């Protein structure tokens, strides 16, 4: 199975536009509702969805729904203001879930 995957980037409009330069589709969103809406719309079309951490933290529930499917991969990335630790926290949560203790 070979699908030509598309890449989406969700975040505040100002910073995500930069990803257009590498051929990703960018979507601006500010509120939780907009982001939820976008995610729902994009989930079948895109293989990878990058989402800025501040927004990702707000829609964590929706993101969790995609965790059991291979695609789309919804991945938090830091915004222009730097990281707020949401991405690393996600890894820690995984470890805790799998091993039972945070050993990283």
């Amino acid at each position: 199975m070979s699908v030509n995957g598309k890449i989406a980037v969700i975040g505040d409009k100002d910073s995500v536009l930069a990803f257009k330069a590498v051929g990703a589709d960018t979507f601006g969103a500010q509120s939780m509702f907009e982001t939820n809406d976008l995610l729902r719309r994009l989930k079948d079309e895109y293989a990878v969805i990058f989402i800025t951490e501040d927004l990702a933290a707000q829609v964590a529930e929706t993101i969790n729904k995609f965790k059991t499917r291979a695609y789309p991969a919804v991945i938090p990335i830091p915004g222009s203001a730097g990281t707020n630790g949401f991405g690393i926290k996600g890894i820690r949560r995984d470890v805790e879930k799998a091993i039972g203790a945070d050993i990283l």
Partner: protein
Amino acid sequence: MARLAVNPTRMELRRLKTRLATATRGHKLLKDKSDEMIRRFMELVRLNKSLREEIEGEVSDALRSFMLARAVSSSEDIEQVLSMPKVEVKLETYSKNIMGVDVPDMRVTMPPAEDLLPYAFAGTPSDLDSAVIKISKLTERLLRLAEVEKTCNMLADEIEKNRRRVNALEYVMIPRLNETIKYILMKLDENERGNLTRLMKVKSMMNDQQL
């Protein structure tokens, strides 16, 4: 542990013994699976962590450059120059199987780019150039991160599910079966003894009568 509600018969006993054997075997297999999944997971999650730590700084850095560029030129300009990207990342998505979990497998091909910038230098700030170059360099690793992180997510989920199965077998199914088997054995033995005593009693009564 409560025993199963079964009749204490020889047939039931045989059936339960087969079930116990299956359960024990299943438990061993699942435990092995869990061990191997955890080993794979630890490898991946370490990679995930180092990748993420490496990338996070660079992404913010690139986006900051981009913000600077936006600050000095109009947003229409920037949107226009970026609307026709020169390098388009080609992403092929497959799925591969790690211990029975379908995880994403991405092949990224970046076209060789001698010239990343899709626009002329006139009219755009130099910050935009550096932002675009940084992001282009990042993309491949960013997608690698996506793949690894997703795999970790899915493995963690599967490990948790698997652990529940192992525990259910180890602490519920197998003790319950053992208990029931023991109960049936006792009951059968008791019947046997009862039968024996009765026979002995009858025989001694017959002896008494004959005398």
